[in-house]
């Protein structure tokens, strides 16, 4: 299956610093169409389209839209999650740097549908270029009267501003992000209430990923029923894939759901350089499973990812060739989470430190059967008892490799061929 360019169709063709150019190429037409529709009908189309969140968790967007729309409390807010801190992901950066008005148009449609009056565009602090481009795009949209009071004489008021992160991965989690927008440390809250009930400043808040918003103009344009013809019956539309690692043509590719991982790697990515063999592939980013070569015929699909007890489908594919050492890779991943843990709950705060110690033993060919047992149970405990998605998903790489690459753990024991007790 080839690429299916929808969100990325005009990228390269459009000047991201010119709203005039973007509008000549169609920007804000669908927003204007949406303004002439009933709010409920917009949400209805999105429900028919079966659009699910592209930021990782895959939650159906219409449910969030509906619960925000039906709130009586005002003002309501919407947030665009452009924190993209998950190693191996760069598709949101690509969208911001190449087509900022597509994202703004999607947010405007969502804001109108739920009756929000203010938007926060939260970009991680390291994305300097994306921050400048989005700020510029927002200024241009204001000048054109697409943001502000009584937009297009519709009576709809909406303002928007960029907020920047300051070097914290966990702030990508929705509640941590809300705290951060309020000017606080980014520690998550216990749910419920959900952001749609009590979000930014305690008000109803719709929070979605960059790519999720980008789908809205297309759904308004073609209608939900046509949109859902793209992809598979359960996972509709396209997915942007961030392809990296040991790969000939790394980059962002847009494919319909249902495409296999092998097609992305071989057909679009041109395979592994120097004719090396693939040893393993990590899916989703640092928090995703690591799978062996023989599983690459798996389809990109929300349901398939859930089999790994991993909700993650932000769309990273990290290819690693046969020179790479599994334990070096796992150590890198665990150290990432150790550093990024917000420290609020014990399994995550203490657990990663201990996971690192155990992995080091195997790295040094000095593991024992007991340590293998500890590693496995500790990974499970962190996975099952952490408060937020960080700790819940951080051990997935270890849990998956304990399944698919178990013999490597055995090979790294102090006594060659050590038996598990």
């Amino acid at each position, binding site marked *: 299956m080839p690429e299916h360019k929808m969100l990325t169709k005009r990228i390269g063709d459009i000047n991201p610093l010119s709203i005039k150019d973007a509008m000549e190429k169609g920007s804000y037409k669908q927003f204007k169409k949406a303004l002439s529709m009933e709010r409920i009908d917009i949400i209805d189309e999105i429900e028919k389209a079966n659009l699910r969140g592209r930021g990782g968790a895959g939650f159906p967007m219409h449910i969030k839209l509906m619960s925000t729309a039906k709130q009586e409390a005002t003002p309501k807010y919407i947030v665009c999650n452009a924190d993209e801190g998950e190693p191996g992901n760069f598709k949101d950066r690509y969208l911001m740097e190449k087509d900022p008005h597509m994202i703004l148009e999607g947010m405007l449609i969502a804001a109108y549908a739920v009756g929000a009056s203010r938007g926060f565009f939260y970009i991680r602090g390291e994305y300097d270029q994306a921050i400048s481009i989005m700020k510029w795009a927002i200024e241009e949209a204001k000048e054109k009267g697409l943001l502000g009071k009584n937009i297009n004489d519709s009576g709809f008021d909406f303002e928007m501003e960029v907020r920047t992160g*300051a070097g914290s991965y966990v702030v990508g989690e929705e509640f941590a992000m809300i705290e951060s927008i309020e000017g606080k440390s980014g520690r998550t809250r216990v749910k419920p209430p959900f952001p749609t009930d009590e979000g930014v400043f305690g008000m109803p808040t719709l929070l979605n990923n960059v790519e999720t918003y980008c789908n809205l103009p297309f759904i308004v344009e073609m209608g939900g029923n046509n949109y859902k013809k793209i992809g598979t019956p359960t996972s509709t539309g396209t997915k942007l894939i961030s392809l990296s690692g040991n790969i000939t043509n790394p980059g962002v590719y847009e494919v319909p759901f249902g495409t296999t991982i092998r097609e992305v790697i071989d057909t679009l990515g041109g395979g592994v350089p120097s004719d090396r063999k693939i040893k393993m592939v990590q899916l989703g980013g640092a928090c995703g499973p690591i799978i062996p070569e023989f599983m690459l015929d798996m389809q990109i699909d929300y349901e398939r990812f859930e089999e790994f007890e991993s909700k993650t489908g932000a769309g990273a594919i990290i290819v690693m060739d046969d020179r790479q050492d599994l334990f070096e890779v796992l150590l890198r991943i665990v150290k*990432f989470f150790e550093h*990024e843990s917000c420290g609020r709950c014990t399994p995550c705060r203490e657990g990663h430190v201990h996971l690192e110690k155990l992995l080091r033993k195997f790295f040094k060919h000095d593991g024992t059967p007991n340590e293998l047992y500890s590693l496995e149970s500790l990974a499970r405990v962190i996975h099952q008892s952490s408060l937020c998605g960080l700790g819940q998903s951080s051990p997935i790489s270890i849990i998956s490799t304990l399944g698919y690459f178990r013999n490597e753990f055995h090979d790294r024991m102090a006594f060659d061929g050590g038996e598990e007790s």
Partner: protein
Amino acid sequence: MQLKEVLDKYPQSEDYLIEILMDYQKHKMHHDLTEDELKTIATHLNIKESKVSSVVTFYSLFSLKPKGQHVIQVCHDVPCHVNNQPDVLSTLKTMLAIDIGQTTDDKMFTLEYTSCLGACDKAPAMRIGEKTFTKLTPNKIKAIIAEYRGRKHA
């Protein structure tokens, strides 16, 4: 830029704390925030100083310690790691004669790790100040460092 100028750019509301801190720290020669400055910001926003301190310690881009004029942040996540990131790091360490977390004697450079910079398709990557450098090789690094050394007080 003076702190007052930065404060004047933002609404006097506590939710702008992170924006203010980021903006101000960027303009400082050694990229650090002092106790006095935190106090001024707290008073201006009418919040407790301890709150400002806790925000500064939570986010890793803030620093209470002075750093080199140019902070070099090397990405060390998996996509960079499998694309010769270790060579990049050792070249930097040798050239600057410092380890991760250290600052050169002339206070020109600090070397740090960073999480993924979202430039994995052009790995390996690093960031100096607000600029991201990609597809790094030992030779490229030599050229980049020479360039920064050359413009001393840029």
